[in-house]
């Protein structure tokens, strides 16, 4: 079956640290074989379907072919997999645009927020401005360009989560653990997923 996988630069697994064999100019890539019976987060080749992509945003997005899928939730885990093709639309520009779009959404939520959470939402929006350029949140003295700014993809992954968290916070009127928070969080994630699908034609 076909699935997707975000990888670090050079088609390296973010967590496994394993370089995936890349497809040659013509023909198929070599299979990456599991190191043991497939098991969530432990052994096997991990990938996901489009709707789970947001948790794993990284520098390269690949379409992968899986063989011997043993588990499906929360991730697809298979006995082996191979890279089909790199999704061409996912690059630094796309990552930056995604981060900016997420930050913009937080500003919109802040503008629309009810009084009880407006102050916090405004603070989240200010945090997002810092995070989007690679600084830490709540850092008024952060330089415009931090010496060790994270990769654009890492910032995108971060902004997506923070924006969803802020949206959940707004939806729950400030309390962090109730159903309204989850609903707000998921609604924002689903907006982000639509953005990704549209941009990348997934």
């Amino acid at each position, binding site marked *: 079956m076909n699935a997707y996988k975000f990888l670090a630069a050079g088609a390296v697994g973010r967590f496994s640290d394993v370089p995936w064999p890349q497809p040659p100019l013509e023909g198929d890539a070599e299979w990456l074989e599991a190191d043991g019976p497939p098991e969530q987060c432990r052994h096997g080749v991990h990938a996901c379907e489009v709707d789970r992509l947001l948790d794993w945003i990284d520098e390269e997005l690949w379409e992968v072919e899986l063989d011997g899928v043993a588990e499906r939730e929360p991730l697809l885990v298979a006995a082996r997999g191979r890279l089909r093709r790199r999704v061409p639309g996912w690059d630094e520009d796309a990552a930056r645009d995604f981060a900016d779009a997420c930050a913009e959404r937080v500003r919109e939520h802040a503008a629309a927020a009810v009084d009880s959470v407006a102050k916090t939402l405004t603070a989240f929006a200010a945090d997002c401005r810092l995070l989007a350029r690679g*600084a830490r949140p709540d850092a008024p003295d952060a330089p415009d360009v931090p010496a060790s700014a994270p990769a654009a993809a890492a910032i995108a992954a971060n902004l997506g989560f923070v924006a969803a968290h802020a949206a959940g916070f707004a939806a729950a009127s400030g309390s962090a653990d109730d159903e309204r928070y989850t609903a707000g969080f998921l609604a924002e994630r689903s907006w982000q997923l639509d953005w990704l699908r549209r941009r990348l034609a997934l």
Partner: protein
Amino acid sequence: MESPRVIGPLQSNRLSSRARSDERKLLQRLQNGDEQAFAELVDRYGAVMLRVAGLYVQSGAVAEDVVQETWMRVLTSLDRFEGRSSLRTWIFAILGNCARRRARREGRCVPLAAVDGDGPSVPAGRFFSRTHPRWARMWATPVDDWETVSDERLVAGETRERLREALDALPARCALVFVLRDAEGWSGDEVCELLGLTAANQRVLLHRARSRVRAAMEQYVEETSG
């Protein structure tokens, strides 16, 4: 319980088959009385053996004695080595016996099971406080991934001295776990067996040492960049 999916190529723990075959050749030469082979083994394991012995006995001189005694026992029992374990495992098992015997004679009780607590891996000041309205206990300062820091800079000359200092400042057993695991490439199981540790305690000691070494490297990288 090793998990190659995560550990990946980082830790090629156990002896590789090539290392095994090198070891067999070395053993053969040793049995033939080849002094060069003995010197190679001594140079390979001697310093770490001294570190291990130092855990059990009071003084450096006694630790050297223990290492001496160990090698004599190794030589005199060479014919009885059956190759069921690796030569390395066998030598260190003998070392452990010698060191424990000596420690008992010195009336020293080595509390090998306990792993006492220690400060946090990263100073609390690097994180937002637990009462921060939005970012409680999250990083307050950036953390560089060192992608642009060359190996040269991380492990050459001056850094290496800093690392040594960081290791020397650690409790001996903690430093030893790091040296065995990360510098010498032993497996977790081997270290647990040698030092009589549970897997969890071994991880605590390893993590403490790695954290200190990381902090020393980070400090060095920050001081020397820009």
